[in-house]
């Protein structure tokens, strides 16, 4: 079932449409699509966790956990609000908090309840492009600045050591997400509850 997803598996890795693959997992429990996602993301999650201080065997085990959660929670993925890399990152981060800090992280109220909407292709594409732009901007930062950001996300800096001034163009991606949230609220028929 490749509806709307004919180009989901193009040869050049950079152009692979990860979101389309994850939607195939979501909608059709497509194990071949999952395998493609696994081959790309699992070794990155493992590297990420080892840079966060996990030993090789713990990182291997947790990377498998992360990919299993990706399968299990595929129906919560919204390509208008996050790229697959971002989604995988949030799962890996939470696994790291559980495994390495033995703590937990409170999560905001979930917004995606109710029937899963058909993702808007144009929105998903823009979110993906914004994320790619962000990746290029990160790569283009002067090394000391980039290193500081990486160390923050590898969990090497305490909250008081983190500098919020990243030098990254976050304004555009934030307004895209804000727009997606507004549409979602509209669909849910309400604003955030504030009474």
């Amino acid at each position, binding site marked *: 079932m490749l509806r709307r997803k004919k180009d989901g598996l193009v040869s050049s890795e950079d152009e692979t449409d990860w979101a389309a693959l994850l939607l195939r997992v979501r909608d059709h429990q497509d194990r071949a699509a999952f395998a493609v996602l696994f081959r790309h993301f699992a070794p990155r999650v493992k590297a990420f966790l080892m840079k966060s201080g996990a030993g090789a065997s713990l990182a291997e085990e947790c990377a498998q956990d992360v990919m299993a959660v990706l399968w299990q929670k595929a129906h919560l993925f919204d390509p208008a609000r996050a790229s697959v890399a971002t989604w995988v990152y949030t799962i890996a981060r939470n696994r790291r908090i559980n495994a390495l800090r033995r703590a937990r992280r409170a999560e905001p109220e979930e917004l995606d309840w109710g029937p899963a909407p058909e993702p808007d292709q144009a929105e998903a594409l823009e979110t993906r492009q914004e994320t790619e732009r962000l990746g290029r901007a990160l790569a283009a930062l002067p090394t000391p600045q980039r290193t500081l950001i990486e160390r923050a996300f590898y969990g090497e*800096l305490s909250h008081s050591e983190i500098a919020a001034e990243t030098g990254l163009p976050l304004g555009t991606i934030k307004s895209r997400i804000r727009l997606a949230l507004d549409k979602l609220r509209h669909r849910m028929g309400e604003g955030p509850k504030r009474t």
Partner: protein
Amino acid sequence: MTIRHHLSDQLLMAYAAGQLPEAFSLVVAAHLSLCDDCRAQADSFDAVGGAVLEEAGEIAMGEDALARTLARIEWLPRAAAPKPRRAAGIFPAPLVDYVGGDLPAVRWRRVGGGVRQAILPTDRDATARLLYIPAGTAVPDHGHRGLELTLVLQGAFADETDRFSRGDVEIADEALEHTPVALAGQDCICLAATDAPLRFRGLIPRLAQPLFRI
């Protein structure tokens, strides 16, 4: 109602990086449940995390890793569709999880001056508690050794810096010595987190502090 006092970028990035003590993450999650603007900003920091993950390099997985994971997901139940966590009362959903319900479920303890508090179960890097301040009452004058976040859930309070009502967060550091006063009209209920014990200067003798776990 408009939220006027938001979380700082530093806190949102630390939350996205997974580096906040649990008590602070609870205040952040509660504010994000009420404020889409901060939620979008937090999500954009998540996207930075995604970019860092993409560039983290690759370390080969074990040979059987994919096969084992495929075998495992065979048996995994589909995660339940998120239940409507939208709280019906005044507590945002993540706070309901910690309290085990809304306002009536809170087990308050008196701390003097009509003020009540309830410590919430989190890891020990920081303390989260609910504060109940009767309308018109002052919270004893206190300074901070660390960072303190206070999210208003009901009513409003004012201190030397400004006025704070539902959804607003006050971020107080060591430099701030303040006397928050609950405004008249409605009792004020706040969720507060701090990574150091409060030093009350007024009503409560310092000796009593360990008893109250303040």
